[in-house]
């Protein structure tokens, strides 16, 4: 017998790969009568890009400006994820109750995913193999690999399918 699965962490980078992986998360949640915690981690801007942006910053205080913009972005992404869920659950609106939380954090993706696993006490995780930076022949994506190195719970790793009916709106 396996340990009971009550909580599933679904990590997304908003790519088509992640959207497809969501269906596995939902399937698992239904089979185990579990809740899903959705997490998106915004990668930090590289220092070089930040330096460039600072020189063209519209206001004197870059820190405040960056912070405000980041918060705006997080809210927007959260709304987008909610809309994504509603679309996925079009035929079964009650499934929405299975989504325990939708969170957008900024930081190091792998680190934040692992932290979220601990925080939510997830019994299982679901994620895609690759994100947006995809080459058809590429090896396992760096975030997936880093997470797998340290995660202590089972993980569903979902590659991009050959065909899919997923339609994502533009960000």
């Amino acid at each position, binding site marked *: *017998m396996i340990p009971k699965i009550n909580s599933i962490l679904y990590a997304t980078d908003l790519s088509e790969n992640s959207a497809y992986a969501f*269906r*596995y998360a939902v*399937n698992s949640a239904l089979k*185990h009568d579990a809740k899903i915690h959705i997490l998106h981690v915004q990668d930090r801007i590289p220092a070089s890009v930040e330096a460039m942006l600072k020189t063209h910053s519209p206001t004197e205080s870059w820190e405040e400006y960056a912070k405000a913009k980041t918060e705006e972005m997080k809210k927007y992404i959260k709304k987008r994820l909610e809309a994504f869920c509603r679309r996925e659950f079009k035929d079964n609106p009650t499934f929405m109750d299975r989504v325990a939380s939708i969170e957008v954090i900024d930081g190091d993706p792998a680190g934040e995913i692992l932290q979220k696993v601990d925080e939510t006490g997830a019994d299982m995780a679901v994620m895609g193999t690759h994100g947006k930076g995809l080459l058809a022949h590429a090896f*396992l994506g760096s975030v997936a*690999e880093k997470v797998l190195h340290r995660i*202590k719970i*089972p993980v569903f790793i979902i*590659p991009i399918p050959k065909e899919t009916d997923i339609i994502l709106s533009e960000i």
Partner: protein
Amino acid sequence: MIPKIKNILYATDLSQNSPFVFQYAVDLAEKYDAHIYLLHIMEKAPLISQDYLFKDSSLGKALRAEIEKERVGAVNRIKKRMEDFCIRNLKARAFLLKRVKIQVIEGHPASDILGKVDELKPDLLVMGTHSKVFLTHAFLGSVAKKVLDRIKIPVFIIPIPEKTDTSFRDVREFIDIYPVRILKRTGKIARYLNSRKHERRR
């Protein structure tokens, strides 16, 4: 499009941790009414012994024949062992036994797992993070990593729980799978040929 899980491939090294990983494959088979391919890949003998074995001498030929006989015996022994493994670990869910198909091949773990995925076309692969019992401190076992780099189907990857005992017992279990007689014989060949080498010099 609802994900389909009708056939599951579980690649096992039959080590001490495999019952734990097997339970996840069994759970999936139960919940999705799926079949399980239980696959074990026998690693080929180390290259150096094969080198001696394929030397074109009467000794080599005789040994080759005997090793071949041993190898077939080993495959059958492992198949039997896997059947016992299923019965032991399914316990109350014996009805699932008829949904398990046992596969044993000799080859290289990572590439042959991928080969079997292409051949059997399962909907999902289940495996543990570590497949070589000796390297339990590695973060992600080498076989798991090589498979994940190339795989085109979903993988359910099961970390080995920390509190598992990883003592010397693992090594003995590993050796138990492969006929000790073959391992001993390769040592004998090396010593024999070494002794002959001194004679030829004179």
